[in-house]
């Protein structure tokens, strides 16, 4: 199967980017409440690439080992959402949430739990907003913590291991005062993308009006 068979046209791509932007913006509001500092977001990027290329994209930017909290989602379309940090940032994040007066042993013992909870808040917020706007319910798996490189994060459990093209959406964020930065990413395989395309078109028709949708 090639990407060409299920390519997204300009407005579909635009609508999907806007949906992710709104979902991530709302999730950032939740994250801000947890850490007490402003969370700065980039503009979302959307690519149709292989998992290996997606992993490469992250690897080019990050030399450190990565920590990710991931949740698989299923419904009319399915895939995986990830909140990814370089390992150093994840420790700073736990400090920001739990309070800097904790000693190192306490931090280590609660790091995984704190990260899972953060991932849960951020990813749920993001996916729920997107599901609501598309008017389709998504069921979410429990958050799972993965440590490793980009390849591990994108090809580990839950996803089909083939080398097919996936829809890769990502946004990077930073909490400047806390020296924390990371990514929110979403991966969807092509059968899901076909289903998503239908929902995105329904969404466009709803917000634009079906009479005008054909003209733009």
């Amino acid at each position, binding site marked *: 199967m090639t990407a060409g068979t299920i390519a997204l046209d*300009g*407005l579909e791509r*635009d*609508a999907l*980017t*806007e949906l992710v*932007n*709104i*979902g991530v*913006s*709302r999730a*950032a*509001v939740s994250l*801000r409440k947890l850490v007490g500092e*402003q*969370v700065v*977001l980039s*503009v979302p990027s959307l690519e149709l690439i292989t998992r290996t290329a997606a992993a490469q994209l992250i690897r080019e930017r990050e030399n450190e080992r990565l920590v990710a909290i991931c949740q698989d989602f299923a419904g009319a379309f399915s895939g995986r959402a990830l909140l990814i940090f370089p390992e150093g940032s994840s420790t700073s994040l736990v400090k920001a949430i739990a309070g800097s007066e904790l000693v190192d042993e306490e931090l280590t013992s609660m790091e995984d739990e704190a990260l899972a909870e953060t991932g849960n808040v951020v990813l749920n917020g993001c996916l729920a*907003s997107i599901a609501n*706007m598309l008017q389709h319910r998504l069921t979410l798996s429990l958050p799972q913590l993965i440590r490793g490189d980009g390849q591990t994060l994108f090809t580990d459990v839950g996803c089909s291991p083939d080398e097919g093209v996936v829809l890769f959406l990502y946004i990077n964020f930073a909490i400047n005062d806390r020296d924390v930065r990371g990514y929110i990413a979403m991966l969807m395989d092509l059968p899901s993308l076909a289903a998503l395309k239908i929902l995105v078109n329904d969404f*466009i028709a709803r*917000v*634009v*009006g079906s009479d*005008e949708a054909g003209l*733009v």
Partner: protein
Amino acid sequence: MGITILIVDDSKLARIVLSKAIAALQPDWTRVEAGNADEALAVIDRQQIDVAVLDYNMPGRDGLDLAAELRSRFPSMSIAVATANVQDEVIAAAKAANATFISKPVTEDGMRGFLSGAALRLRSAGK
């Protein structure tokens, strides 16, 4: 002279949705669009703009940055910033630029207050 509203958003879909809501609420206003802050400033150099609706998260300069510049150049312009990112710092920056918040996704209901307020201010200014 009529009233002109400038819509600035990098998303074409978002511009269509904003434009549609504005057309429903203020059908007599002229709508002009820009895809980023630089385009918006170019439009403003060419023509009179009375009201501006700006997206927050755009490539290049963001909507708050643009709002601050517009405010310094046009003290009485009605400006709104549209975003789902309602973090305290974002709200504070919008307040500092005396801009109204509109939550995304934009709806007619969400636009109504801002547009009628802007219309009222323009009328009392004799426009």
